[in-house]
């Protein structure tokens, strides 16, 4: 909470600094009679930035290092016997001390050394807060004075302020790169830790998925085979695409080629509503409506259909993807040049022949790209499968039975208490890495195909 107030204080200070700078530059201009290089507002911003940015940088540095330093100081003050504990136990002790010092109670009776450490931790925290305020104030005032001394009619304030603005813009666009790097590094790092427990070959080509919940050495590890999960993902994706591709593509064709503007303006947004519905809602719909419906229908035909099965999940996922396929294909079909259609119609082809023999072949690369993007959506979809696929990680080909996927298993292995030392949790990152790679390849392939197609007509 104190961080919030400190930031507010700095912002208020920056407001004052802006006023000082603007007023001062005006008075300089009028007293010296010289023309200012920049507008007074630029001088104001120049002073405000010099005042606020260093102070915020100090705050950031404190926020990053404070916890580690306090922890080190507290741990070094603990008795020898405690310090020699294993890292995990030391962590537990430290968490007890931290919750003591923050005023929350702890389970069990506090040891005298814990109380002493908690007291010293509170003291350290207070000192650190006061120190950060002092340093920030010093830096802010120093920056303010420095910038005020710099003010003169020849100071190129606008250029300097704009350079800072552009630097911030570059930083903001680099966030996308930082995110990608963070994804790759974190998935890769944790997956490597998992592979120190389980050999990569056993993971990627294992056919048994049975992670036991006891961590007892390498011998009794249970099975960490990816193949049953990968197969589940593939099966559900196939079912989803069998629903989404015909319905989505025909919808797109009808909307683009046949529908009256009236129908189009009504039906297109309504179908696109399907794209905006959260996936948890689809999951619930699959679980309570589609699943029981399929089970009853199967019972009437004398076939055993599980209510939560690959079919249920795939069907509902297909519904979810319909608008995705239809709006992407619609865009691509309408992009096909008019002249191609006119040529075909002029030669006497019917409307549907024109679509099938001329428009679709011309649009095919784009449509395939759209399908690949849809496949990548289906592969990464989580909540529908968590609720409706039945969670049975076995290699079996019957879509009427329960099945499990990569995403479901990630959720199962990482929900609740996260323990970053056991293979049971870490396997989620290996699975995530697999998922990320699959979707990345699909996306790059799709973008490549779409881009290649575009070159043909532009």
């Amino acid at each position, binding site marked *: 909470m104190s961080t919030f107030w400190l930031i507010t204080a700095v912002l208020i200070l920056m407001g004052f600094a802006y006023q000082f700078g603007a007023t001062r530059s005006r008075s300089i201009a009028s007293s010296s009679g010289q023309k200012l290089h920049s507008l007074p507002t630029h001088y104001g911003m120049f002073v405000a930035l010099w005042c606020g940015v260093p102070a915020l940088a100090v705050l950031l540095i404190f926020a990053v290092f404070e916890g580690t330093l306090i922890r080190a100081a507290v741990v070094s003050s603990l008795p020898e016997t405690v310090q020699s504990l294993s890292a995990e136990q030391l962590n537990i002790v430290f968490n007890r001390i931290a919750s003591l010092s923050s005023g929350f109670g702890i389970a069990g009776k506090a040891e005298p050394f814990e109380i002493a450490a908690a007291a010293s931790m509170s003291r350290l925290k207070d000192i650190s807060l006061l120190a950060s305020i002092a340093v920030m104030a010093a830096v802010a005032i120093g920056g303010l004075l420095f910038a005020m001394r710099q003010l003169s009619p020849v100071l190129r304030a606008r250029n300097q302020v704009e350079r800072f603005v552009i630097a911030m813009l570059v930083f903001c666009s680099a966030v996308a790169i930082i995110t990608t790097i963070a994804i790759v590094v974190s998935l890769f*790092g944790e997956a490597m830790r998992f592979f120190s427990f389980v050999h990569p070959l056993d993971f990627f080509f294992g056919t048994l998925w049975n992670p036991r919940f006891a961590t007892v050495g390498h011998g009794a590890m249970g099975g960490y085979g990816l193949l049953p999960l990968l197969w589940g993902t593939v099966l559900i994706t196939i079912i989803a695409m069998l629903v989404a591709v015909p319905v989505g593509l025909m919808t797109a064709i009808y909307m683009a080629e046949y529908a009256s503007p009236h129908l189009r303006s009504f039906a297109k947004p309504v179908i696109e509503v399907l794209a905006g519905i959260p996936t948890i809602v689809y999951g619930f719909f699959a679980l309570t409506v589609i699943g029981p419906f399929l089970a009853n229908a199967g019972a009437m035909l004398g076939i055993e259909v599980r209510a939560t099965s690959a079919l249920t999940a795939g069907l509902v996922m297909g519904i979810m993807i319909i608008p995705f396929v239809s709006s992407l294909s619609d865009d691509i079909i309408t992009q096909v040049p008019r002249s191609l259609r006119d040529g075909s119609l002029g030669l006497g082809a019917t409307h549907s022949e024109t679509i099938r023999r001329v428009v679709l072949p011309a649009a095919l690369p784009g449509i395939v790209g759209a399908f690949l993007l849809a496949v990548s959506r289906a592969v990464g979809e989580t909540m529908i499968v968590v609720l409706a696929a039945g969670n049975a990680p076995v290699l079996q080909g019957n879509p009427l039975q329960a099945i499990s996927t990569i995403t479901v298993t990630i959720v199962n292995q990482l929900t609740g208490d996260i323990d970053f030392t056991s293979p049971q949790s870490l396997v989620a990152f290996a699975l995530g890495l697999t998922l990320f790679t699959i979707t990345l390849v699909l996306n790059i392939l799709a973008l490549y195909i779409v881009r290649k197609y575009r070159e043909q007509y532009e």
Partner: protein
Amino acid sequence: MTVVSNQLPPLPSNADQGAKSPYSAVHSSLSKRHASERRFKALGLAAVLIGLGFVAILFTSILSKGLPAFWQATFTLPVTIDAKALSIEPYPQQNSGQTDAEYAKEVADWQASLAGANWARLIQNALLVYLPPEAARRSRDVQRLVTSSERFQLRELVAAQPDIIGQTVTLRMLADANVDVWIKGGIDRTLSDRQLPLTPAQRQYIEILQDRGVLNQSFSTALFTNVDSRSSPASAGLAGALVGSLFMMLIVIVLSVPIGVAAAIYLEEFAPKNRFTDLIEVNINNLAAVPSIVFGLLGAAVFISWLRLPLSAPLVGGLVLTLMTLPTVIIATRATLRAIPPSIRQAAIGLGASRVQTVTHHVLPLALPGILTGAIIGVAQALGETAPLLLIGMSAFVANIPSTPLDQSTALPVQIFLWQGNELRNFFESRTSAAIIVLLALMIVLNGLAIYLRRRFERRW
């Protein structure tokens, strides 16, 4: 080019059929081709109707299940706050010899003593007024008609206003979840007594209480004002989840809008064409298609494991959702910026504005409606996201409304996930649908706002 002849080729007459005219093949297949044309068109229409049908089924099923849950079986009872039935001491009065501190301690002791009082008894007495005399012997059956959290509500009421002891107040109390489902017909009445969650006596009492007008369906404010509850399902509400989601959305707005807009401005207005900007472009396009659960893994590894931020905190959820919505905001903003004609920029630069001034004074104000629309759509997407939140511990049961973004909390879609898995299926199926209706309503409002902004401020150049 001159028109040589605008006459169509002569139609083949019957006499020509023997001699192979080039048109006979066309004519003989024509009806087939027209039939296939009709089939194709019908297929397209069928696809559109299937799509529309799915929308209709989805909404009807959720509305039909969820709307009844907004009304809940509620008792409206005069309850006598009888100190004797409760066996509590009267509220302490300050004696002349007492110091303020002593008196405050006495009051605190009295309030603590309320915890041991028999509040269920009080509710039971209020119900017994309407029930046949033999009901007095079936106190368990009677007490269980009212959901258990009402006892604590009553205790809070008395602790806050001690002067109502001895008075009779009319209170609204939620009925037990099973009573609610029974009244709504959600329980199969042909089941045997052992399978039913209500005893025969309870079922009889429900009917009596309904006839006397004490037990009614009334609008369930509990759904919006209470937090989730395990011991007392009838009073489980969405307040905690709504506040948690609100915190996360605030974080998403505060972070993803400025960062996303800044990134889009840089890429559209300033970036030179080089490998660095190409790399950024590729990254943004890929991030837009990365499955949301991968962002959850990122959050678990980076924010929870490395930076040691607390589990289940809206702060972490907000950060993860920010990273997830950033590509949406960037792509929408870029599209808006691209739609602004270059002549505006050229005019500003021609008048001596710097490029930063051009952007801040001219381009951004014109792009504002489009940026807002993109931001709202991004926030709506983040609001409905569930999977990444499960991985950072937000699926934990939380019994308090979070007061800061660092407190334990859950979120609206996660609450839906938790409720659908509740054992009390009959009750929570409609409760979950009601939560879904709330979520969808919020999303419709957000998207409606985006459409309104687009319509209101859209400019064609």
